[in-house]
């Protein structure tokens, strides 16, 4: 039986800060009446140290131009905010200190903060205590990051006419959010903007895992890249794509394919590419270019390796790495991981719901998170979910216009409507009155206010 405390009139200040605190970037910005993506800043959520032992915090990293052997310390571990010492330094740098990206006075600001699904209760409590006792925000609400996506106009993504702007803050009734981020990929069914906790499922593969795998492959086959995580991330974002026909693509990139077979498989888009490594001394970015098979190109490469001539660039030839790496999202078993791929995870999540909800969920799937930007991701996901889903159900999958800032924008839509915001926020006064145990219960929904 939920305990009902005495209703009090909550007075909230005008300014609302929304932070989608991801492991790789922190998406932060102030809400206004008609928020756009330009209001959102994606700040690297890390403290980095380059090889000159200089330390960069958060947004300072934009000025850094030597990413060789750079090491990162991330306060968010496996998607969960664990280390507050580092997080406080990054938040201070972004919001409090002189020259901050988003200068703000917490005492006159509402905070909407996101967390990953299934956060351990101890971490939630830590988070609440820091927000109210260290930063002293005027009011605060903590919600699941995928849940904020319900405040978008989902139907227009599926081709329906966009809805009236007067009903902006209404959450979508049924929505299945696939969030494939840096630390992991989660599937969250939402009903009226509220998560159905029993059916949330997680695949332990995210962008970090893919980057590390690519790093390992390249270290075996080309150059030792074990300390070049940042570069490998860039390479991954540039070259990776998800194959529509994995077996065929693997045959096409086989080094031993005979000339006649190559001919039969050629005539399509070439898979093998060269990636030219960046030169941090000359401030040159790395880039991808089509692979040159001619003997002269081979000679040039040999020449550059021996240090002769004026060619100073170094490149590596990438073939099946381009699609075997992101393939892990769809078949983790390739590395021996005992988990089903992303489409299977969607179905596992649905199996936690009554079958009556399946048609509505399958027809309203929204994909967010950085991995969805990989070329071919949406097509493959749609194809495999379609194969696994019951034949009676229509499957509609859409990607958010900006998959990385999508949750932030949803939060901004929520904050634009004062009454909706008022319903979820807890003021500092209430916290001081009832304590952090009560606050945890409010956010988990077991105490009604």
């Amino acid at each position, binding site marked *: 039986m939920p305990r009902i405390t005495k209703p009090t009139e909550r007075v909230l200040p005008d300014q609302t800060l929304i932070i989608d605190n991801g492991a790789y970037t922190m998406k932060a910005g102030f809400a206004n009446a008609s928020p756009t993506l330009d209001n959102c800043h994606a700040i690297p959520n890390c403290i980095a140290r380059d090889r000159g032992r200089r330390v960069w915090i958060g947004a300072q990293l934009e000025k850094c131009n030597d990413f060789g052997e750079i*090491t990162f*310390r991330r306060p968010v571990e496996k998607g969960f905010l664990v280390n507050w010492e580092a997080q406080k330094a990054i938040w201070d740098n972004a919001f409090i200190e002189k020259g901050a990206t988003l200068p703000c006075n917490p005492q006159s600001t509402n905070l909407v903060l996101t967390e990953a699904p299934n956060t351990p209760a101890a971490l939630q409590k830590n988070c609440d205590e820091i927000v109210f006792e260290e930063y002293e925000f005027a009011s605060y609400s903590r919600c699941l990051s995928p849940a904020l996506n319900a405040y978008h106009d989902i139907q227009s993504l599926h081709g329906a006419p966009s809805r009236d702007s007067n009903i902006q803050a209404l959450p979508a009734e049924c929505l299945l959010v696939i969030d494939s981020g840096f630390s992991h990929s989660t599937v969250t069914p939402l009903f009226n903007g509220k998560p159905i906790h029993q059916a*949330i*499922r997680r695949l332990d593969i995210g962008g970090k895992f893919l980057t590390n795998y690519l790093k390992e492959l390249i270290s075996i086959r080309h150059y030792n890249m074990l300390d070049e*995580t940042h570069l490998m991330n860039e390479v991954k974002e540039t070259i990776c794509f998800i194959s529509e026909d994995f077996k065929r693509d693997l045959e096409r990139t086989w080094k031993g394919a005979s000339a006649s077979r190559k001919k039969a498989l050629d005539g399509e888009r070439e898979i093998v590419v060269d990636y030219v490594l960046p030169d941090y001394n000359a401030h040159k970015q790395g880039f991808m270019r089509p692979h040159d098979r001619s003997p002269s190109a081979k000679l040039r490469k040999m020449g550059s390796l021996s240090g002769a001539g004026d060619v100073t660039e170094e490149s590596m030839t990438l073939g099946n790495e381009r699609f075997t790496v992101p393939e892990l999202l769809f078949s983790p078993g*390739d590395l021996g991981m005992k988990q089903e791929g992303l489409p299977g995870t969607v179905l596992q999540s649905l199996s936690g719901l009554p079958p*009556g909800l399946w048609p509505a969920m399958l027809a309203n799937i929204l994909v967010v998170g950085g991995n969805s930007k990989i070329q071919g991701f949406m097509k493959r996901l749609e194809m495999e979910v379609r194969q696994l889903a019951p034949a009676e159900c229509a499957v509609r999958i859409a990607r958010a216009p900006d998959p990385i800032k999508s949750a932030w924008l949803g939060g901004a839509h929520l904050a634009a409507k004062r009454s909706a915001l008022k319903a979820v926020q807890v003021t500092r006064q209430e916290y001081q009155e009832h304590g952090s145990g009560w606050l945890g219960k409010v956010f988990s929904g077991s105490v009604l206010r």
Partner: protein
Amino acid sequence: MPHVEVLPNSTSVRAPGYALVPDTGHGTVQVAAQQTSGRKRAARSLGLPGGDTTVRQQNAVLKHLAELDKDSHRDVQVPVPKDSAGRVSKKTTPNVRRILMSQKTFANHLADEEAAIAQQQQARQSATTPRTKIVPDLKRASTSELRAIPGSGPSQNAAKPIGGLPPAPNRDPLDDDPLLKSYVPSAPSEEVMEALVSGPPLSYNAARAGPPPAGKPQRHFCEICGYWGAVKCMKCGARVCGLECKGAHDDGRCLKFYA
């Protein structure tokens, strides 16, 4: 033999510095410990004969996966710069100080959570009187339980016409054909949805996606070039695609020099 049981204690204080970890008996550590005597035979005999799943290989796979999930290849310590860490203008509360000083990693928190859940379960098992506090169920409710909620299953609502409309007067005789019938169940009732939405969150481990249904064999790839791994190294069990890659494997990557 005396039976020892941990009684639930309402005034338990979490001591800092250590965590109670439930002993599930399936951990890697245990598996590794089994190998101390007659290692080779034990390692081979536990797996399926002829299969790839010897204990040693399973451990290697788990280690590899853990490696790939790490933030950086080496353990690095990047200290927070002093000018921002030491700048404490106002008084901090004990809570804040404790949280900022905490060096716990996610693995520690996860172990704490697992221990708490194990303790709750133990408490529930040993509690015989109903006056004990009901702890939220952090395990997955099976689908069959959810289906048992009245109104959620397809069978209960199948008889009712949707939306209260009278049945159409001239029905196609093929409508009753079981082959052509649509089996989409109707939406669950509001109470069911209310119960679903207000359910407690799962624990971290319970929310992990399960393994794929058996029957689909694992694909193997050459560890040198990434092509199909048709050949297995007889010494260490790694997969390669052919002679050329086998040579490269033997030169540097074979895990066992003497076998």
